[in-house]
């Protein structure tokens, strides 16, 4: 996530800090995915215990 390649090139000196937005958006998609993975792992363990 280096600054030179991960951002559209700024043409003004002051650009807003995008980090809070990045964190929010990844949380938005990450939370339901984590729920799905948790349920998956719960089910997958049945292969060894069922």
């Amino acid at each position, binding site marked *: *996530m280096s600054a*030179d*390649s*991960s*951002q*559209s*090139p*700024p*043409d*003004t000196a002051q*650009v*807003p800090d*995008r980090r809070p*937005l*990045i964190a929010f*958006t*990844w949380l*938005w*998609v990450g939370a*339901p*995915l984590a*729920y*799905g*993975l948790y*349920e*998956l*792992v719960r*089910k*997958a*363990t*049945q*292969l*060894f*215990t*069922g």
Partner: protein
Amino acid sequence: MSPPVAPPGWSRWLVPPAALSVHLSIGQAYAWSVFKPPLESALGLSGTQSALPFQLGIVMLGLSAAFGGTLVERHGPRWAMTVALVCFSSGFLLSALGAAVEQYWLIVLGYGFVGGIGLGIGYISPVSTLIKWFPDRPGMATGIAIMGFGGGALIASPWSAQMLKSFGTDSSGIALAFLVHGLTYAVFMLLGVLLVRVPRPRERADGRPAPLEGVQVSARAAMRTPQFWLLWIVLCMNVTAGIGILEKAAPMIRDFFADTSTPVSTTAAAGFVALLSAANMAGRIGWSSTSDLIGRKNIYRVYLGVGALMYALIALFGDSSKPLFVLCALVVLSFYGGGFSTAPAYLKDLFGTYQVGAIHGRLLTAWSLAGVLGPLIVNWIADHQEEAGRHGSALYGTSFLIMIGLLVVGFAANELIRPVHARHHEPATTVPAQHAQKEGNDVSRQQPESA
């Protein structure tokens, strides 16, 4: 709607969540089976009838991806994601109405036809944009999005089941569940619509957009190249081989070990299916990212060559070792997922970024055929073997040989892929650039390596 151009300082790491919000939603399609038993009992449907909305949805996915790709390229990702949001959500809302008034045809029209258009347009909506933002890592970028399509079912399956448990499985409970799905997915996908941006166009000294560097081929021209159809064969063979296991995973593992001292219970077989889903998802991000390092042609050599070897191991020794059977099946399924997610990057290497989304949409027709071919082969052969009095692993031996043959055909097709002839290239003046930094260097670096 003109494509939304990123403001100065916009981070490209905001684009994958936008893509994921769409793919995690439309991936719900693979959890449709949760609704089948309640629909059958509430509306008096047969199993074939209750599967129809899903099947029509997948057909519409292929058709709208194939025919809508050019529109997606023209209008940009925000337009495409908006269409996907409206179609996918209103599909659920129409289905809710259908369930409430007990009109089955409304569910077919809503979820299958209208929602299916949302699936196809949504599937291809972020591909081109992601590749443009991540010219240095196109495999990883598209892998993240297409992994989301696999992840969508993981989320929807327990979520929908829980909702039906709470609302009830009569027609009003199903209607309420459809309604909540439609509204929730609309809100969830809205993030993608609001967030997605295309990179700012690079400009020449005179202020006009600079042309794209490297090979650029239009979707129409790509269809006339052998490379497109060879890659179509590669994808079709790889998907057919993966679906061959996925389709009958639970009965297959039970049959394989039915006559051994360690038979597999129904519960354990369900765990095996879940594990395969995990491998499918992991393959989408893992193998696609690996392709950025070793090249697209090499990764498909692995998918097809090692995939054939895995099938051979299952056929020869699968019934003597449960760990070996499980391991080989997991590897095959990871290659199945990887094949899907690496395809857009392979297309980018061959045809450039100019209309890669549209070309990808057309390539997905290979998926439609494979979706029919894979289950057909395995089920038809297993049924005939059973009629002939065979049982256990003998039900699948012939299917596995056919799958090995298909993978070898795919391997040969991949070997025949060469760089696209210059007569198919677009003139530099017709393709304005809309790229992140370092684009030209990476295109020229990837082309000889992968094509």
